[in-house]
């Protein structure tokens, strides 16, 4: 392909003026044109592309970006510029204009971190792998979070957003992994068990004592890691050498040898604290994580109290189950008197419990609790193995509360307990991270007699549908003239013998085979509950759902019905009408009656959420059917128009990639213009008359699934 000539000054000025909306913003583009003009076409296109993409988010950000990118062009490679631009837009999304501009103003800061962005390990990228890695390492279930610096509070491990201590990308990932392993060792080998306040109070300078202890403990953990994870330990040493960490001074080497005697107990490090106190602490190794006594202590105290209660309550349940078991020969009168006393013994990674000299295999959660308690206390204190008495503890103290989605809107706004979904910004050609806040809400039931009324109204149709779907249900049929099968096909055999008698070749298709089709199908209906459905559309939707439920109950397919609506990205709502588990009973019928128009249609988030739910179901074929009355749209927002269509398209694309087949049934007359683009040519159907919706939907479903 021939290289296109660079754009001229006029063309450049036109593009920039259009991007910056110069008519209204009065941004000067002359000097930008001057700098861009001499560049090659390829570079011009690259910059203009980003200018326009950012301008779709915010013109001011885009203008500032352009002013600086031309200066930085020779210093930054394109990958870094892209990262810079995306970072600025993400900042704009999450924190607003000023911080975003700051990202751009501090181009030199960014340059200094350019290495970090080019070769660094990003938390988001390493999180999944390392979280699984951590889960594999055993011990207490730990969470991986992003934080300012690597440290652990004994329940969460924090890693910085970007780790760039090493030269290459691979080494930086390794560094993250080493830090995670080191922090895991801190929780696993008792560093977090230390009572820091008491220990350091005895020293003239507690801060110094802490740093000495940290050094000692670091050495101890290294010995543990070398023993537990020899492969990683080799890598850690290589990392440390490559980073140029100073060698251990001789007195510390001696201490390390002393620690090797019993490295798995933190007391070994504490015992040497006095000896080491006068020494200067050695430089930290690159993979060592800081110790935050305050954070650890707070977490630990809360956890110890909670887990003590939880363990004793769980043991009480266990004892009750055990004693109800007729094989356990304990006179119940005796058992009722005093609380059950267990004994616990560690057995490999698991635990073995003994109650009244009888072994009991503890369930997984009790196993986890015992492990966690052991890590905090260093042993299982006997009083914790006494089952809790009736009403000894208030359940509210140890049970994890599920938040009522309605409460979220009372008082100050927060996103706790909600699902966060990204949204595709087509102008930016990038996702907006954690953009939509989605909640599942139970639908308020409507009139109880509604469904019966509908069935009565469409009595003939219901009967017809039931018959049609019944015919579909039994799809087993006898296939004749098969090459293989359960039984001989006598007709075929007679013919074949006759053929053979005539001297013709005998067919080998002489068997019958019973063909059975298992309908392994799960279908999710996503019902538009936007304000525009008010009136007869809503009525038709509800009636269509009743027809569907009646048909599907006959057929036996698994199905769920959810409604969706919302207002702005901060309030996407999914209404539970019927989950896969719920039966089609009076309560479900009442919920169908209770479908009322709400607000707007931000479809992307709803599709992402429902596709996720659908993917949790075990079925060969998964269908996501949308009942809708129009384009995606949201309150006073860019979601109207191309943005919404593109995001919905992207969400559907994601769904399809995960194995869900999306389909859309619409009553929008203009659907032809955008639905094929979103759903693909064959995956939508337009119903021209709303009143026909109830008649058609079940029929469409039948066609779809046969």
């Amino acid at each position, binding site marked *: 392909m021939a290289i296109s000539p660079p754009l001229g000054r006029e063309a450049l000025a036109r593009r920039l003026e259009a991007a910056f909306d110069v008519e209204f913003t009065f941004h000067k583009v002359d000097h930008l044109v001057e700098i861009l003009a001499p560049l090659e076409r390829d570079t011009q296109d690259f910059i203009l592309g980003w200018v326009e993409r950012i301008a779709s988010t915010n013109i001011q950000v885009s203008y500032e970006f352009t002013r600086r990118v031309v200066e930085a062009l020779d210093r930054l490679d394109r990958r870094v510029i892209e990262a810079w631009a995306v970072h600025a837009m993400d900042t704009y999304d999450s924190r607003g204009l000023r911080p975003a501009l700051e990202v751009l103003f501090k181009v030199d800061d960014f340059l200094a971190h350019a290495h970090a962005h080019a070769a660094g390990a990003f938390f988001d990228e390493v999180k999944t*792998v390392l979280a699984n890695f951590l889960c594999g390492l055993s011990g207490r279930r730990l969470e991986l979070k992003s934080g300012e610096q690597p440290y652990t509070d004994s329940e969460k491990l924090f890693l910085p957003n970007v780790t760039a201590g090493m030269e290459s990308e691979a080494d930086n990932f390794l560094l993250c992994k080493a830090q995670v392993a080191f922090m895991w060792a801190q929780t696993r080998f008792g560093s977090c068990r230390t009572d820091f306040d008491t220990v350091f109070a005895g020293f003239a300078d507690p801060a110094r004592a802490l740093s000495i202890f940290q050094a000692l403990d670091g050495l101890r953990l290294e010995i543990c890691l070398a023993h537990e994870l020899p492969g990683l330990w080799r890598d850690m040493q290589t990392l440390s050498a490559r980073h140029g960490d100073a060698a251990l001074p001789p007195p510390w080497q001696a201490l390390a040898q002393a620690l090797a005697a019993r490295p798995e107990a933190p007391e070994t490090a504490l015992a040497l604290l006095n000896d080491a106190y006068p020494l200067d602490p050695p430089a930290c190794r690159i993979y060592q994580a800081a110790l935050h006594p305050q954070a650890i202590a707070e977490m630990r105290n809360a956890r110890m109290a909670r887990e003590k209660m939880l363990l004793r309550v769980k043991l009480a349940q266990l004892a009750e189950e055990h004693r109800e078991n007729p094989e356990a020969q304990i006179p119940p009168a005796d058992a009722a008197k005093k609380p059950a006393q267990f004994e616990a013994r560690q057995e*490999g990674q698991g635990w073995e419990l003994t109650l009244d000299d009888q072994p009991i295999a503890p369930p997984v959660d009790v196993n986890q609790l015992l492990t966690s308690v052991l890590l905090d206390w260093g042993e299982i204190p006997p009083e914790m193995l006494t089952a809790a008495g009736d009403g000894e503890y208030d359940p509210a103290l140890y049970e994890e509360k599920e938040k009522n989605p309605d409460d979220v809107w009372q008082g100050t706004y927060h996103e706790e307990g909600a699902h966060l979904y990204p949204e595709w910004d087509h102008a930016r050609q990038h996702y907006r991270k954690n953009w939509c806040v989605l909640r599942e809400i139970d639908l308020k039931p409507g009139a109880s007699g509604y469904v019966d009324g509908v069935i009565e109204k469409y009595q003939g149709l219901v009967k017809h549908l039931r018959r049609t779907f019944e015919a579909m249900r039994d799809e087993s049929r006898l296939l004749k003239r098969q090459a293989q099968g359960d*039984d001989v096909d006598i007709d075929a055999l007679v013919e074949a013998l006759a053929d053979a008698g005539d001297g013709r070749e005998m067919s080998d298709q002489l068997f019958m085979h*019973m063909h059975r089709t298992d309908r392994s199908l799960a279908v999710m209906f996503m019902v538009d509950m936007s304000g525009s459905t008010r009136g007869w559309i809503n009525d038709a939707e509800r009636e269509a759902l009743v027809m569907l439920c009646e048909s599907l109950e006959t057929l036996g397919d698994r199905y769920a019905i959810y409604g969706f609506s919302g207002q702005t990205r901060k309030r996407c709502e999914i209404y539970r009408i019927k989950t896969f588990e719920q039966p089609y009973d009076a309560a479900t019928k009442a919920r169908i009656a209770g479908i009322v128009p709400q607000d707007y249609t931000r479809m992307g988030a709803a599709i992402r959420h429902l596709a996720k739910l659908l993917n949790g179901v075990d079925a060969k074929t998964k269908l996501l059917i949308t009942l809708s009355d129009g384009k995606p749209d949201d309150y006073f927002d860019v979601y109207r128009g191309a943005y919404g269509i593109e995001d919905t398209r992207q969400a559907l694309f994601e769904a399809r990639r995960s194995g869900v087949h999306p389909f859309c049934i619409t009553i929008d007359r203009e659907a032809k213009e955008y639905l094929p683009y979103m759903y693909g040519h064959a995956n939508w159907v337009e119903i021209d008359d709303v009143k026909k919706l109830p008649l058609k939907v079940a029929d469409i479903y039948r066609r779809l699934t046969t």
Partner: protein
Amino acid sequence: MDSPRPPAESHFITQEPYYERVGTEVELFDAAYANGLPILLKGPTGCGKTRFMEYMAWRLKRPLITVSCHDDLTTSDLVGRYLVKGGETIWVDGPLTRAVRAGGICYLDEIVEARKDTMVVIHPLADDRRMMPIEKLGQLLQAPREFCLAISYNPGYQSVLKELKQSTRQRFVALSFDYPKAELEAKIIRHETGLDEAATAKLLKLAEMTRNLKGNGLEEGASTRLLVHAGKLIAQGIDARAACEGAVSLALTDDDDMIAAVNELIAALF
């Protein structure tokens, strides 16, 4: 009762298979066999169910006929069918019928995978009637004393479709299998692969780590069988990391993130 015909030689196990007893399963099997009770083996994949059956067949000196069940396995596949040969229909016994006639052990592996209608032929065989109706021949076969029916299933599957019905399961003496305890598993791996203690210990640690991931992205942890595979590769001179990646991480899952995580665990150990 007819005396059993001499069974096919090929189904006899002549060499003692390597099997480590975990508990009282051998005695239980012996007793159940002596009383003509059918046996149900439960346990995750690769924990030694099939090996145990081979061992018992060798111990009892009976032929072993193993049928791996699949979702298209029909009654005819078990009982037998007519085939057309040279213009004539001839009856061919299925594996279950052969085992009944020969007084052998019929082992139906992963029984829940088979079609539900296969249970119909198993039921009369599995209670005190010990009979097998062959509908197409109009025969009712009485199983000889030596015949034994064993089935296996993996209760770990979460699918509701793959559960054994009460009417089926309550006919069997059940033996539960799980991954052996660490020391025993180490012994098995050492015996099967010839690896030294240090390498075996690392493999075991890896197994433990993957079993920690069960339910957190992995459907199952690494089974003893996978460990043996990895061990054999290592003993063959393959680099330990490569061996474990091939035999463990890639065998466990297709999920890229999960493979990466298991590989990181492997790299941390070897």
